[in-house]
């Protein structure tokens, strides 16, 4: 059982949270969920794809950060790349209208981390940024759910089969990822396309399609890593 507590300016007055990107603080993930409100930032670096929740089977959007379990190929880039909200949020999550913190998260309680409250018990800038972030995360999640429902209804989702051969002689077969079915997209009736455009979905769809160009870039990154 993890210890999750509602954030409290008394109980957590001296608590510090490590905010730097790092594998040992839980950024070692190869696929991280993102909301549609992150697409235009994410497309600059990552493939934006769909995957299924292991518990419910429901589709969610996410960015691909690596090929092997626990592999995030962007950690060395530090703060030069956009960091998905789900990594930025670290040990925090929303619990109803409140903010909760996972006290067992490796980022919680690091002495060199960011303070949450100042001497007067007022939230620090860091904590305020987390509040804002969680608000964006929650809004993004709702929009994303409706967006995915629309994709499913229009049968616009197709599996993405990746089978890559690297220069060190190893192969990676990545399964369980999905992307936009471009053939189905082209076959949509005009009225549906117009509707997608008006609702802002057409742009999201094309951001996902454009992000596929990040797959070979990611593979190249992996390749150099393997040959190091």
């Amino acid at each position, binding site marked *: 059982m993890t210890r999750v507590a509602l954030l409290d300016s008394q109980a957590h007055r001296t608590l510090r949270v490590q905010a730097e990107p790092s594998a040992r603080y839980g950024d070692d993930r190869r696929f991280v969920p993102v909301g549609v409100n992150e697409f235009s930032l994410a497309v600059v670096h990552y493939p934006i794809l769909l995957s299924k929740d292991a518990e419910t089977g429901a589709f969610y959007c996410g960015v691909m950060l690596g090929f092997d379990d626990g592999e995030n190929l962007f950690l060395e880039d530090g703060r030069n790349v956009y960091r998905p909200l789900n990594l930025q949020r670290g040990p925090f999550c929303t619990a109803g209208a409140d903010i909760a913190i996972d006290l067992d998260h490796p980022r919680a309680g690091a002495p060199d981390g960011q303070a949450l409250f100042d001497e007067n018990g007022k939230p620090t800038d860091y904590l305020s940024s987390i509040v804002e972030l969680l608000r964006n995360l929650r809004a993004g999640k709702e929009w994303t759910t409706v967006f995915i429902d629309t994709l499913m209804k229009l049968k616009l989702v197709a599996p993405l089969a990746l089978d890559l051969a690297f220069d060190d002689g190893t192969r990676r077969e990545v399964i369980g990822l*999905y992307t936009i079915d471009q053939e189905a997209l082209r076959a949509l009736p005009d009225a549906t396309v117009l509707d997608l455009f008006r609702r802002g979905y057409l742009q999201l769809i094309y951001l996902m399609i454009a992000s596929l160009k990040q797959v070979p870039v990611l593979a190249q990154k992996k390749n150099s890593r393997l040959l190091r």
Partner: protein
Amino acid sequence: MTQPIQSVVIVGGGTSGWLTAGVIAARHQARIKAGAFSVALIESPNVPIIGVGEGTWPTLRTTLEKMGISETELFRQCDTAFKQGAKFARWTTGAEDDAYYHPLMLPQGFSQLNLVPHWLRNGNSHSFCDYVTPQGSLCDAGLSPKTITTPEYKAIANYAYHLDAGKFAPFLQRHCTEKLGVRHVLANVTSVNRVEEGRFAGDIRSVTTEQAGEIAADLFVDCSGFRSLLLGKTLGVPFKDCSDVLFCDAALAVQVPYDSPESPISSQTNSVAQSAGWIWDIGLPTRRGTGYVYSTRHQSDEDAREVLLNYIGRQHAHLPMRRIPIRPGHRETFWKHNCVAIGLAAGFLEPLESSAIVLTELSAKLIAEQMPANREVMGLIAARFNDVTGYRWARIIDFLKLHYVLTKRTDHKFWTDNVAPETVPGRLQNLLELWKYRSPWLFDEFDRLEEVFPAASYQYVLYGMGFRTEVEPLDIVGSQSMATKLFKENVAITRQMTAQLPKNRELLRKIRDHGMQPI
């Protein structure tokens, strides 16, 4: 001038009627939409559905997918569970620990290599099933054949369904009438009207109904159940009894509640041999369906009731038991004039290998695919249909008899009578002789495109029941390394699947709560 076939009338609802309607309507959807073809189903408002057969074959997945049915809805609306095969207990010796599986997965590498001789020489430490497939282990552990992220109709381990037949027929009906344009007529057929003269004299012209007047059609499908109203009663096609081979002629059915809502749900049909027959035990999400199939020539109804009560437990003595008569056999032909029979109207056998629904599917598919363009060529199609369907019935009878003929039980006359040579069909006798020296596999005689039971099924039953085929050691030297590789693969896959797959009840709950994805 030819007489085109543009309308099909199915007489009788129930699982067979609605499956047939769905398969035909889905296949001819474009013509139906264009108004050039029609499918109607006439169902009596007051004849109850028999609703036997809660077991199906994996073919049903393809059949339902082609009809455009959501698998999630099938699970939600028909009290559906997964079936990964059948477990036959106490069939061979009758001992407490006597059991084997007939799983739905083919043996590893079945299309490349026959593993039977290798198992016979080197696999003594495993049952045949465990030597060649993970599915027996999956069933032992009560695991499901897929996960919540596996798309609808796709499998990790091959599967079929256990379902509530009483809910399945209305479920199919809704889909057929709402999505596929099948016309549903609730009416009693009072008379069947024939064509009196001309080239096609003897054909069925129409049926007269009490509530909906006269209904004509180009092709009639008889799904009227045991009474076989069109093919048997009207066209006089005789019934071919096979109780000389398969003795069971009655069943007592009872639905048993689970001890707790969390009780595990069995992954397989359980078939437990008794003194004069066998008990089926099928786990649905909300209850178990059980029943005792027995021979009244060997046991009284009274004693049969005792046998069933002993199995389900005396605390269930108050539960209502339903007696279903079984008349094992089938019509001599299935398609005559412009009328074809499907389901119980065509025939019935004890549900030992869940052959009823699969035979309905195969027959409906054959009719849908081979739908005669006109009355003039119908005779050719009918002859072909009769040939294939007759072959299938004979094959099923052989295969069911195989379960009895390999028994070593001597505790009751039922079992000793069953091995008497005069009760074993000639072809099966020949095969048993042949199998002493060569195990069934490809290039055997089970070579039809849609064989109801493939050679693999015969392997599972034969070697599950202790049958032995002589192996010439030099004969398998060349394929030894391949066999070792396949066996190792099976061990690895078994480990992997066992770790990955959830329990049956857990996945069924998730399907109810979240649904499965279509892709």
